[in-house]
């Protein structure tokens, strides 16, 4: 009987053991998918932009549309002066999008025979969210100096409730990397578990009830099919949400006065 464990897809397998500074830095299937994410993105974009035609072909159109999509998102949420962060936001968006999409493969010819969604591991999304959060703090202080603290003192608030509002603003600011990272992580984790649970039902029904079970398995199969479509949507949407929240947070670093 096939393995119906829905958690198996999140397992990490060492491919090339590597230790440095007393840390286990082995090249794992997670590292492999990070490599694939970067490599596939670079190869696809390079191929798409190889002709640089005045009238673009389909691949070049897609590359230009993604470029315009991220540029518009950044410009509309954080203003035109935020375009200095464009490569950063674009890298975040395309990295998460590609990682989520590569995670949609149900099978991968590697150890464990399963594909791997790097964004389904909290440590990865926390790292990305902290990168954004620290960028906001460092750039915000660098650019605005003490005026950056205006971020916690909204204008037009009566003095007697200002301390509470400021407290809420501080808590909200501190909890940003948590919500930012957990949102992406939980979406990818839950969706993939759900997908594998329903796919597992087909195998369980077949193993338990024989041919009749496989016939009944049409129901969870249909569910899996629908969930796969939904997961593709979630894979894109979460990359978009992560990127647009990054834009909003960067907007705070650029214009802390609300």
């Amino acid at each position, binding site marked *: 009987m096939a393995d119906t464990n829905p958690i198996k897809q999140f397992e990490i397998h060492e491919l090339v053991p590597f230790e440095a500074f007393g840390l286990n830095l082995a090249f794992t299937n997670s590292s492999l998918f990070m*490599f694939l994410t970067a490599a596939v993105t670079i190869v696809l*974009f390079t191929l798409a*932009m190889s002709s640089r035609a005045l009238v673009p072909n389909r691949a070049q159109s897609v590359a*230009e549309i993604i470029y315009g999509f991220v540029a518009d998102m950044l410009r509309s949420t954080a203003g035109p002066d935020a375009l200095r962060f464009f490569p950063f936001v674009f890298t975040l968006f395309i990295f998460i999008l590609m990682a989520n999409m590569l995670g949609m493969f149900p099978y991968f010819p590697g150890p464990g025979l399963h594909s791997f969604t790097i964004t389904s591991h*909290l440590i990865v999304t926390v*790292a990305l969210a902290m990168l954004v959060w620290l960028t906001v703090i460092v750039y915000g202080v660098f650019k605005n100096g003490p005026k950056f603290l205006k971020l916690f003192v909204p204008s037009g608030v009566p003095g007697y409730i200002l301390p509470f509002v400021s407290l809420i603003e501080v808590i909200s600011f501190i909890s940003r990397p948590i919500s930012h990272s957990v949102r992406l992580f939980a979406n990818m984790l839950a969706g993939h578990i759900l997908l594998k649970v329903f796919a597992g039902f087909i195998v369980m*029904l077949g193993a338990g009830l024989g041919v009749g079970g496989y016939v009944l398995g049409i129901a969870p199969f249909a569910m899996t099919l629908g969930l796969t479509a939904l997961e593709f949507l979630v894979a894109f949407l979460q990359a978009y949400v992560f990127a647009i929240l990054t834009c909003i947070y960067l907007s705070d670093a650029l214009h802390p006065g609300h």
Partner: protein
Amino acid sequence: MTHAPHSEVAQHAAEAAHDVAEAVFPPFDPTYFASQLFWLAIFFVVLYVALDRFILPKIKTTIEDRRDRIADDLDAAANAKADAEAAGEAYEKALAEARTKAHVIAADTRKALDAEIAKETAEVEAELSAKQDASEAAIRKAKDKAFADVRGIATAATAAAVEALAGVEMSEADAGKTVDGLLKAKEA
């Protein structure tokens, strides 16, 4: 949890749940945290550099080149349109000028022709009136001559009539006086 040994499906599910409970949930397993952060940093930076240095500038210049090209083409089209309009205006102007010129030429020609016609008419009229005058003079001359003859004849006839009736020879002068007196009386 109620166990149902007759159902293999439930048993498998229970076993799977048991396996999961025993093992550490992989996303929270800290064994590979360092490894994940390490390789994430490497590949994220690689992707960032590749995008920032090579791919994004390429897309940017391509889009800008296209926008410039379109703007240039639109400008060229606007210029061509302005040129065409100017040419149209020049044509209209030339046409109007030519029309005015044609009117002037026509008017001049008409004037010249009229003058010539008037001149020729005047010449012909002068010639005709000269001829008329000559004819009238000749007629008058002939008439005078005829009148003179009539007086002569009347004088002779009077002399002859007096001679025949009274047998008195009448001088030509006396006959003339008589005739003139009669003519005068008739005229009066």
